[in-house]
């Protein structure tokens, strides 16, 4: 199993204010800590035109992280492909890849907020084609960069597997959905010619190591607050087969409860057991969703240390089912 953490969104929010430049300084501090602790990857996230400064320029932020680290890989989870020109992104990806010794990984998504399409003058109906254009341009320019896609649709995930693209699943997905999607991804890969290595399945999971009841209560608040933020962005998860919808617009409280229910919070042993179930669901890489609304940097550093020292060694050799 490989381990990452995320998502760094570089925000200054109503309930967790800070100078916007502080967010970028802390990103570099966090990255140095993760590099020292032996994490595999740091994941960044993108949105546009939101009040809190949510990072709109992931290649720029990724460059700063890669410059101050030695082994840590930096991935976008996700860069909104329709919002950036294919040629520009291909050139940026090549530059990040070449200057970092191949430590940059590109996750791309379609985007879902009307205002972002409107602000960039991109018709929403073109978003799938634009993502294709981006993937082609990047593959032509720098084919060795790992590509990640994000979706909760089995057919889309299966297609990603067929094209040997990795997938990153949302932290709000219940484990049952993660299992179904991972199976779809593997099915897709197995239907390909197999000429490329099997792409990896990564999953964001809400994870925290603590034995303290007060900290546990605070962490639950943080996870909840982090999904309130996504509700503000207009995000939701539609029904998929046996998995119920998570509609932050129509049923906020229920959706928040469902999202927070995915959390694994407890002692190191309890977290190890929980993550073993995640591996059994078909996940190769866990991305600890610890950079969440309300969590101060000291708490994030402490949990990054505990995860690296008490959890990751027990799971390093575990393989996805």
């Amino acid at each position, binding site marked *: 199993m490989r381990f990452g953490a995320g998502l760094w969104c*570089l925000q*200054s929010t109503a309930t967790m204010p800070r100078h*916007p*430049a502080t*967010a*970028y*300084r802390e990103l*570099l501090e966090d990255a140095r800590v993760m590099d020292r602790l032996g994490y595999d990857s740091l994941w960044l996230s993108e949105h*546009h*035109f*939101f*009040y*809190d*400064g*949510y*990072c*709109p*320029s992931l*290649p*720029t*932020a*990724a*460059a*700063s992280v*890669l*410059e*101050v680290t030695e082994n840590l890989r930096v991935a976008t989870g996700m860069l909104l492909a329709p*919002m*950036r*020109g294919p*040629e*520009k992104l291909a*050139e*940026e990806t090549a*530059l*990040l890849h070449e*200057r970092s010794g191949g430590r940059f990984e590109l996750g791309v998504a379609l985007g879902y907020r*009307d*205002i972002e*399409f*409107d*602000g*960039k*003058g*991109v*018709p*929403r109906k073109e978003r799938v084609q634009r993502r294709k254009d981006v993937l082609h341009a990047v593959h032509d320019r720098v084919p060795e960069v790992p590509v990640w896609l994000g979706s909760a649709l089995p057919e889309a995930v299966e297609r990603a597997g067929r094209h040997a693209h990795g997938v990153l699943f949302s932290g709000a997905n219940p484990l049952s959905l993660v299992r179904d999607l991972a199976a779809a991804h593997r099915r897709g890969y197995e239907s390909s010619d197999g000429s490329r290595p099997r792409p990896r399945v990564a999953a964001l999971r809400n994870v925290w190591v603590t034995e303290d009841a007060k900290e546990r209560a605070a962490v639950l608040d943080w996870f909840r607050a982090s999904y309130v933020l996504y509700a503000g962005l207009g995000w939701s998860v539609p029904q998929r087969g046996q998995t119920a919808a998570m509609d932050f617009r129509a049923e906020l409280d229920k959706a928040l409860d469902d999202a927070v229910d995915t959390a694994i919070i407890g002692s190191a042993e309890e977290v190890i057991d929980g993550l073993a179930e995640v591996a059994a669901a078909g996940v190769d890489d866990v991305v600890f969703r610890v950079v969440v609304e309300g969590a101060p940097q000291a708490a994030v550093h402490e949990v990054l240390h505990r995860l690296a020292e008490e959890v990751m060694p027990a799971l390093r050799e575990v393989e996805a089912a």
Partner: protein
Amino acid sequence: MRIGIRTRPGREAADARSGEQHAAFGVLIEPGPLTAAVAGAMAATATEVTRLIVRTVLGADHPVTLAEDLAVLDNISGGRVVALVDTGTLDPAAAQEELSLLLAALTPRPVQHRGIRWQVPAGLEGHEAPERIEVTPKPVQLEIPTWVTGEVAPQLGAHTDLPVLAEDPAACDRRRRVQPAIAQLSGDREADRELVSRWSDAGATHLLVGAEDLDTALPEISRYLIPEVAMPLFPRVVAEAMTPRGWPGPARYVDPPAGA
């Protein structure tokens, strides 16, 4: 007059670090039309105080995206960005529109732009779309210093009152509080002293210099050229004095371990 350097494509971070160590006021980042912000971020994290002059080519991307890239870079660098807006292949009207939208997107005001090339917001997604957007995050600086260069820069400069990067001493405008300029060093100490003095006399305030061999040029720039134009009648006794030998110890003093 102050002197900065042109970094080499592919060497931006290393050159910027070296430039800062050699007292350059700023470093010009110009890796190509599509990757200036990424190369700028690498240079930003390699430096602490030097200004990052980022060649931002109009027409290569949506002006809102260019504004987002510059704003993020300004946050990464703690407010050290200067935008050198290059008009590229645009005609004066197109360059004017793109620059106008870029600058509007960098202010803390919601943006609405109705132009020939761009509509922001574009009004594509139905009636609920707002009439203005707020481009975020905002730059750290109250206003990102903006200079212009390129074929139609003189027209743009005249229209916007922004400083135009001078490539000839005769193009310097003494009425401007900031008159940026660019020149190439020859590698000959006396010729380069004359060159920077000529620019200073012409009224340039910030000269960016390129050199064929930047590694060799940097010690010359910091030892001879920057002092030469830092004051009128720079004392010859200082200009010609021997440079003291360096300390053979490490670059940073490290406290010995306790009890040692």
